[in-house]
C-alpha cells in the first residue's frame, strides 16, 4: 500500500487540477457541433490548458518513474562493499631514458634524483631510518624514538652489531656499522621498492650483489608491486614467513580463498599501504607502539554493512579481522616457536623447519588458529636494558586493552613464543652479535658474542648468559578470506567455540551471559 502513495498524491493533484481544466477546456473547444451543447465561455486562460497537459505529463512521467523504481527483488543484504577504486597509476616506461652504465648503485639513485628530486623525502621514513617518530610508549614515562635500529625481538634478536646481514633489507646502501651516513641522498635504495625485474638482490649492508644488473633494474622501475614489498616483509627473521603469520611469498600470486583483496581483486600492497610523500602507511606492532599512521579496514569499508544487525553489534567488541581472518599461514607455514637455547648442538641434523645449529629449535604452524586478545591499538615495549624476571615469560610488546577498556576490541594474533639468551647477571635481554667474524654463528660461544654485542650496542655484559622465555604479539590483518569463509556464530559461541571466554574476562559465553557492560 505504501508504495502506491505517490500515485495517490498524483491522483489527488489531478482531481484538483481537473476542476480548473474542465472549465477552461470549453474555451478551447473547436467550433464543431458540440458548440451548441457547450456554453460558450470566454475564459481567459489558454495557458491553463498547458497546465492540464503538464498534469497529465506529470502523471505519466511519475508512473513511468515508479514503474521503473518499484522494481522488487532487491536483496536486503548489504550492497557490495565500497571498495576504493584502485588508483590509476600513470606508467612511464623508463627504459628509454635510463641508459647507464652505472658504476655503483648510488649512481642509479643519483640518476633517479635528477628527475625526482622530491623523492629524497624517503630519507625521513622508517623504511630508511629504521626509527619511528619520537613518541611515548604506553606504561612508561618520557618520549623515546624506537625502531628496528634499537629494538629487540625474539627472532634474530637485534640488528645492532649484525648490520651486515640485517641491512640486506634496508632501503639504503652500505649500512654496515654505526658509521653509516644517513644524510647522503645517494645512499637511498630506490630500486628495492621500484624495480620490477625480480633479479635485484641485495647483499652485505644492503649493497646489490655484483651479479645484479643495475641497468636492467633501473630501466624497469615503476610502482611497487607485491613482489617488491614481499622481498623483505615475507622474509623477515631470516626466512620465509618467519615473522608474520599473514605475509609470505605466496601472496605474490595469491588465490582468492587465501586473500580476497590481493587474490580476488588483484590489489597490490600499495593500494592499501599508500605512501604520501614516501611515508608508507601501515604499522607493525613489533616495531611500533601505536597505529596513528596505520591502515584500517574502515578506510574503505563501511563497518556496519552486515546483512544481520546481530553481526553489526559485534563491532563494539570484535575487530573485523577476528571474523574475516579465520586462520593464518594458510599456504606457507609460519614460525610459532624459537628456542635459542638448543642452538650449537653439533650432533643434530639441520632442518630449516625444526632445527638449525646456528639458531636452535623451531616449530612451524600452518593454517593456524589465531589467538584472541583484547587490543586497543597500542602496545607497550620492552626496551634495551629493561629488567626482566627470567622465571616469567617476558612479553616484548604487551598488548594494551582489556574487557573494561571500551576502546579495546578482540583481535586475532599470531603469538611468537621464544626462548632467547639474556644477561643472567644483569637480568636483562641482550643483543648478541651473531653474524660475521666472532659472532655466535661462527664461534657458537654465547659469552664472546655477548661481549661483541655489548660493544656494538653500548650495554654492559655481566659475563653470565642464561635463557629466558619471551613472547611477541603479531596482530593479523592480511589474508582476509572471502566472506563465505568468515567465522559464523558457532565458531566462537556454543560448545566448541574457539574463544576462551573466561580468559577474555567474560563470565561465560556472552550469548548466554551477555556482553561486556
Amino acid at each position, binding site marked *: *500500500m505504501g508504495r*502506491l502513495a505517490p*500515485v495517490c498524491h*498524483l*491522483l489527488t493533484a*489531478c*482531481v484538483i487540477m*481537473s476542476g480548473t*481544466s*474542465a*472549465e477552461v*477546456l*470549453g474555451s*478551447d*473547444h*473547436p*467550433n*464543431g*457541433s*458540440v458548440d*451548441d*451543447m*457547450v456554453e460558450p465561455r470566454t475564459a481567459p486562460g489558454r495557458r491553463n*490548458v498547458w497546465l*492540464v*497537459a503538464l498534469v*497529465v505529463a506529470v*502523471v*505519466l512521467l511519475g*508512473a513511468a518513474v*515508479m*514503474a521503473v523504481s*518499484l*522494481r*522488487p*527483488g*532487491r*536483496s*536486503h543484504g548489504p550492497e557490495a562493499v565500497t571498495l576504493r577504486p584502485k588508483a590509476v597509476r600513470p606508467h612511464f616506461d623508463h627504459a628509454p631514458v635510463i641508459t647507464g652504465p652505472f658504476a655503483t648503485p648510488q649512481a642509479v639513485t643519483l640518476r633517479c634524483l635528477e628527475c625526482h628530486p622530491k623523492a629524497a623525502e624517503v630519507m625521513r621514513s622508517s623504511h630508511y631510518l629504521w626509527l619511528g617518530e619520537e613518541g611515548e610508549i604506553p606504561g612508561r614515562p618520557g618520549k623515546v624514538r624506537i625502531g628496528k635500529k634499537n629494538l629487540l625481538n625474539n627472532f634474530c634478536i637485534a640488528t645492532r652489531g649484525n648490520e651486515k646481514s640485517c641491512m640486506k633489507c634496508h632501503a639504503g646502501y652500505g649500512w654496515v656499522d654505526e658509521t653509516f651516513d644517513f644524510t647522503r641522498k645517494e645512499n637511498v635504495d630506490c630500486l628495492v621498492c621500484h624495480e620490477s625485474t625480480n633479479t635485484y638482490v641485495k647483499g652485505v649492508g644492503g649493497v646489490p650483489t655484483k651479479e645484479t644488473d643495475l641497468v636492467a633494474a633501473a630501466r624497469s622501475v615503476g610502482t611497487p608491486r607485491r613482489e617488491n614489498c614481499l622481498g623483505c616483509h615475507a622474509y623477515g627473521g631470516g626466512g620465509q614467513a618467519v615473522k608474520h603469520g599473514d605475509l609470505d611469498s605466496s601472496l605474490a600470486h595469491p588465490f582468492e580463498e587465501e586473500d580476497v583483496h590481493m587474490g580476488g581483486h588483484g590489489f597490490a600492497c600499495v593500494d592499501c599501504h599508500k605512501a604520501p610523500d614516501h611515508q608508507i602507511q601501515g604499522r607493525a606492532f613489533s616495531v611500533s607502539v601505536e597505529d596513528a599512521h596505520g591502515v584500517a579496514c574502515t578506510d574503505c569499508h563501511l563497518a556496519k554493512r552486515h546483512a544481520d544487525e546481530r553481526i553489526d553489534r559485534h563491532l563494539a567488541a570484535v575487530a573485523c579481522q577476528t571474523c574475516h581472518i579465520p586462520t593464518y599461514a594458510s599456504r606457507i607455514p609460519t614460525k610459532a616457536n624459537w628456542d635459542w637455547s638448543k642452538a650449537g648442538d653439533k650432533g643434530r641434523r639441520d632442518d630449516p623447519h625444526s632445527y638449525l645449529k646456528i639458531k636452535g629449535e623451531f616449530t612451524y604452524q600452518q593454517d593456524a588458529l589465531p589467538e584472541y586478545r583484547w587490543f586497543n591499538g597500542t602496545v607497550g615495549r620492552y626496551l634495551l636494558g629493561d629488567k626482566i624476571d627470567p622465571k616469567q615469560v617476558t612479553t616484548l610488546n604487551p598488548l594494551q586493552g582489556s574487557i573494561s577498556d571500551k576502546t579495546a576490541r578482540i583481535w586475532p594474533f599470531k603469538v611468537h613464543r621464544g626462548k632467547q639468551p639474556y644477561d643472567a647477571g644483569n637480568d636483562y635481554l641482550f643483543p648478541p652479535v651473531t653474524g660475521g667474524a666472532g659472532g655466535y654463528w661462527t664461534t657458537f660461544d654465547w659469552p664472546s658474542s655477548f661481549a661483541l654485542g655489548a660493544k656494538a650496542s653500548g650495554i654492559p655484559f655481566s659475563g653470565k648468559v642464561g635463557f629466558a622465555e619471551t613472547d611477541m604479539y603479531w596482530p593479523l590483518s592480511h589474508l582476509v578470506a572471502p566472506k*563465505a569463509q568468515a567465522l*559464523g*556464530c*558457532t*565458531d566462537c*559461541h*556454543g*560448545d*566448541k*567455540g574457539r574463544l576462551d571466554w573466561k580468559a577474555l574476562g567474560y563470565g561465560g559465553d556472552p*550469548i548466554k551471559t551477555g556482553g561486556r557492560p
Partner: protein
Amino acid sequence: MRRALAALLLSTLAAAAPALAQQPVNPIHPSFAPLDAAGKKVRTAAAMSSDATCGACHDASWIGAHTGHAAAKVKTACIQCHADGGALDVREATLDAEGRLKREALRLGKPRAANCAACHGLAFDATTPVALPADIESADPGRGAVYRMTMGEGAIVAPQKMSEAFLNLEGKAGLGSPWDVHAAKLVDCAGCHYAPNDPGRSVERKKSLVYLTTDPRRPSSAEFLLRPDHRLAEPSCRDCHDALKAHDFLPYRERHMAVVACAACHLSSPMGPVAELVDATVATLQGRPAIRYRNVVRQPGEPLNAATVRPFRPLLVSRVEGDGTARLAPVNTVTRYAWVSGPNHLEVPWSKVLEVFIEGSDHAAAVKALFDANGDGRLDELELRLDSRAKTVLIADRLRAAGLIEPAIEGTLDTVPLAHGVPARDRALRACDECHAGDSRLSAPFTVAGYLPGGEPPRPADGKRLDLSGTLSQAPGGGLLLLREGGSAPGDLHVLGHSRQGLSNSLGFGLFVATFLGAAAHGLARWTLRRRRDAAEPHRRGEKAYLFGRYERIWHWTMALSGVLLIGSGLEIHNSGRHLLLDLPRAVSWHNVFAVVLMANAFLSLFYHLTTKAIRNFIPSPRGLAARVLEHMTYQSRGIFFGGEHPSNAPGHKLNPLQQLTYLALLNVLFPLQIVTGLLIWATGTWPAVAAAVGGLSVIAPLHNFGSWLFLTFFVLHAYLVTTGPTPTEHLTAMITGFGEVHAETSSSERSGT
C-alpha cells in the same frame, strides 16, 4: 529390565552414529546412585533402570504418561535423551563408596542434538566433519524411525557450511550456506521442541481468552523439574519469525505468506540424500534393502558417502499448518516395502530375508538363476527387484521354506513434510517462475515409486487418506507417478502466470482472432475494390476543421498508451515474464501503475464529459436508432467498398450509432469489469477476504483475462476503423493535430472512424 536392555541396545546404536556434540559435566545436578528396577543400588550400566534411578526424584510415571516419545514401537528411557551419548557411564571407576556417581560422570542435562540425532536423523556439531554414517542404509526394522529426518526430508542439521562437508554435493564449492541456519545460530533441537510447561519458555498465548497475551501463571522450576511435560512443542516457523517484517523484495507479501508455507521456498532444495523407495523385500550383497534415492547419482556398489548428491526438488502439496491454515508446503514421499507373514501381517524379520537372499558371501544360487537377467553373475539394481510374478513366487516359496506362514508383500506410503535443515536465505527460492510459470514446480510430475515390488500398490502409512493434489498413475517402468494437470495448483490456488484460464482464455482468444481476420478481410476487400469506389465517388478534398480539442486528444492518447502498456504487461504476467521484455515483478508493477493511470485518466475524462455535456456524444439517440444502425451496417458492408454515401449521424451527434453502442458497452461494461476485477486481484494481496467473498482468484482472474481479450479485440477494431476515413491516415492525423477534413454536405457528422 527389558527397558534397560532396550536402552543399552539403543545406546550402542547411538554409539554407532557419528560423534556429536556431547553433554558436558552437569555442574548442578545432584549426584545419585544408579538403581535397578527394584530400587536396589547397582554398579553397572546394564543393570541400571532409568525409570527407577531418575524416578527417585522426577515423577517418571507422570512423565511416561505425558510424552510424545512413547509410541508403540518406540521405547525410550530418560538417559537415552538426557545423558551423554544416550548412556550414563556407570562402572566401578565412576562410582563412589556409597554407590553414587562421581561428578565427572554426571554428563547429563537438556537433550543435545546428538541425543535427538541418534534416532531422528543426522546432526553434527561445529567441528565434527559432516559425513554419512556407514549404517545409514541399515534395514533393521527396530530402527524404522532412524534417519527419517535425513532420508525422508533430506535434512542434515549442522552449523557447518555445506561446502565443507565430506560429501560429494553437486555445486559444492558454491554451497556457502550452513546445513541448518538454526544450528549455525545456536538454536538446538530443544530450542524449538521444548517442554511446554518449561517456566524458562514464555508461556504461549491463551487461545481461550483472546484478550490475554500471556499467562503469567507458570510452574516453579522445582515443579517443572518434578513433572516436565514431555509432549514436546512442535512450533511452526511463524512462532518465532515474523515473515511480514522480512521479504521486502516480494510483491504481494501478505498473499504469499497467506498461501505459501515458509518451507516451500526455504526448503526448496535439500542437499541430504532423500529416499524414494525402501525395498526391504530384497537384500543386497551388503545385507541391506534396496534403496532408491531421489537425488543421488551413484555407481553400482558405491557407498552412499561417495555418491553425488544433487539438490532435491520436493513435491508441493496443500497442507494444513499448525495455525490451521492450508498452505503450499513441500513434502517427500517414501514408499517402504517389506515381507509380512501370518494372520496379523507382522513384518518378516530382516534376518529371514537375508537368509533367503544371501548364501555365504553371494546371492543364493536359485535367486541368482532367476534374477540375473543379463547373466553377468551378479544382481544389479535393475535385476534385484520383485518385478515379475515368477520372482515374487520364488522368494515367497523360499520364505515358506524358512518357516514363515503366508508370506506376502506390503508397501506403505509415508508423506514426510520438510521442516528441518533450513539453509541460509540465499538458498531460498527467489525466482518467480519457479511457481508463476505454466510449467513450474506446482504441476511437475512426481515419481512416487520407481517400481512396485510384487506389483502391490502401497497404502498410506498412517491409514489416512493422502491428498497429494494430483492423480496417481502407472509409470512406464511399473512404478507410481503423481500427475497434475498443467496449470493447476494444489489447494485450488490460482497462481498468476501458472494457472490457465481455460474457457475464458479460449473464448477471448477466439473472439480476438475472428475480429482480426474480419478486419483483415474487410480491409483487403476495400483495397481490392478501391478503384471501383473512387470511380463511383471520387474523393473530394474537403475543408480542414478543428475537430478534436487539446484535452480530447490528450485523454485519448493517455488512454491509448496506458491501454497498450496494460495489455503488454498483462500478457507478460499471463506468461510469467517469459517474453523477456519485463520480468514478472516488474510486469506486475507496470500493470499496477498504468492501471492507476488509466483509472485516473478515465475519471478525469468522465468529469470533463459530464461537465461539458460532451457525454451526449456517447449516448445514442433513441429515435430511429434501429434504422440508423442498419443504415451504417449496410454502409460498412457495401457502400464502403463501392462508393456509397456515408450515412449521417443522429442530429447533433459526433459519433455514429455503431460507435455509440460500442462505447456504451465499453464504458459501462468492460471498463467497470476490468477495473473491479483488477482491483480485486490487486486487493488479494492485502485484503484476501475481499476477493474470497466473490469466489477468489480462480473466478476473478478468468473474468479479467476475458475482459482483456475484449479490450484487445476493441483495439484491433478501433485501429482498423481509423483507416476507413476519406484517406487511410485521415482520422489518425485528426486525432494528432486536431484538424480533420470536413465535407460541406455531411458537415461534422462524418467522423466515423473513432
